[in-house]
């Protein structure tokens, strides 16, 4: 998805993992994904730079569709669709 599309995307579930260091955001994604249905979109917010690489790799491994990352002031929004 383009950055503009991502910025206009409303996630079905938003997980605020800001302020936690690795592996906090990844574990938050792992734990909270159980709360969304297949095909729904989750947004993980993180201040940890490594998460930008970690969650796309995790999505690839788990079969979820990584949609993209948007950089906000001081944090990132990482979007993916549950398989």
């Amino acid at each position, binding site marked *: 998805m383009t950055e503009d599309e991502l910025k206009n995307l409303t996630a079905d579930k938003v997980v605020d993992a800001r302020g936690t*260091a690795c592996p906090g955001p990844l*574990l938050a994604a792992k734990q909270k994904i159980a709360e969304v249905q297949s095909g729904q979109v989750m947004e993980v917010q993180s201040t940890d730079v490594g998460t930008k690489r970690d969650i796309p790799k995790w999505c690839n491994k788990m079969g979820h569709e990584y949609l993209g990352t948007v950089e906000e002031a001081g944090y990132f929004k990482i979007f993916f669709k549950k398989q």
Partner: protein
Amino acid sequence: MAKMVIGLFSGSIDRLTGAGVISSGAAALDMDIEIYVLIMGARAFMKENSEKINELSETPHLQDQFFNGLDKNKVKKWHEFLKDVKEITNVKILICGLAGKIWGGEKTDDFIDLVDDICGVGEYVDAATNADLHLFI
């Protein structure tokens, strides 16, 4: 399900923390985890020691910097990582019988609640042989 086996020999805070972080990554990937706690590691898992562990493995002069970094980044304690991982995936934590005896731990109750059982080294070697990922920390 893929399995990660850790031979946790170290009882140093930096390596224990590392083991917790790596286990978290494995849990996120839905891996089963078996941790075999060996010689020095068993000391850290003793009930009376788990909160006192503060030695670094190789760089004692960096101890203050290490702990300041943990605090600044709100990093969990080493055993808190393992507790959380146990809530996410299948984790077995087994203490090597000999290692336990060295530090005065003869039974499971002598160790923190995360510990599942006492084992022999043969089980560790067998598990490591059959694991998808084996780490010796």
